[in-house]
């Protein structure tokens, strides 16, 4: 009986551990780049900034929250947005990168609804934008399902 109880406890613990890992943020939903030399973009909006994350939507798509943080110079007049599943570069919230040319950091929270083109299964989010010259030295990108 004691052995059975221990086995049952182990089974319950494994189940709970599985649940916990299911809620951990999968690696494909995160991107971090810390660069020795900046990645440069020069031109009007809109071009891909070549940083993407993906998230797996359930059969009934739910909204997602995408957060982008960047350290850059020459951000004057630039705007940033998102390409969702290969579509056009759109703005799902704030996108202005300011008017100064010195180092600055900015964070953006973008909310993408199912009507914006989300689909069941894998969805890809790529940062895009442009305006003038832009040198990015570090950036993080994260996507999470709303539920």
């Amino acid at each position, binding site marked *: *009986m004691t052995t*059975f*109880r221990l086995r*049952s*406890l182990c*089974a*319950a613990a494994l*189940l*709970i551990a599985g*649940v*916990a890992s299911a*809620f951990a943020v999968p690696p494909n939903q995160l991107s971090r780049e810390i660069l020795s030399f900046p990645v440069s973009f020069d031109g009007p909006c809109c071009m891909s900034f070549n940083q993407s994350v993906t998230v797996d939507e359930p059969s009934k798509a*739910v*909204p997602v*929250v995408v957060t982008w943080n960047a350290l850059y110079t020459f951000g*004057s*007049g630039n705007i940033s947005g998102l390409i969702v599943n290969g579509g056009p570069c759109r*703005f*799902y*919230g*704030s*996108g*202005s*990168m*300011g*008017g100064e040319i010195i180092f600055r950091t*900015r*964070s*953006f*929270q*973008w*909310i993408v*609804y199912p009507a914006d083109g989300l689909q069941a299964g894998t969805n890809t989010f790529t940062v895009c934008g442009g305006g003038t010259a832009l040198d990015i030295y570090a950036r993080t990108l994260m996507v*999470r*399902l*709303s*539920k």
Partner: protein
Amino acid sequence: MARKMMLLFLAIACLMLAVETPAFAVPPTELLRVEQNTPFQSMCCISYREKVTLTEPSVIAPVIVTWSTDYQATSMYVASVSVNGGPCLKQGSVLLNPFGAGNGSGPFDSHMFQWVIQPSDGLVTGKNTFLLCGGSFTDPNGVLMLGFNTLSARLSK
């Protein structure tokens, strides 16, 4: 007896799953996206007319409210949150520096705020409302033009 024990442990596991799930869920009422310019001209504190709601469990947990916005401002402006109709609290970073024309023309700047709302700030079990608020810090004639922005609230655990 053995079957009862197995069922008991499965029930415990399911209960833990049920408790854990809401902590990670973010219902749509907790998200807001605004895609228009809206002007304000007032000393602090007035409503910026944007709100999100969130349901607290019986054991109240802190809430993280995040606001990411484009803006122009002709004077220094305050931005914060009113919890359940209470005062415009100062739970963290609150200032928007002057930038741009204030009338929607020309470039905008952007800022992202993250506020941590503690249970002692007025959170209650059940539905909680978080209303964006603020106003000019010093100049009654200062104008704030909010651009595209998003507002979200989520439980801390």
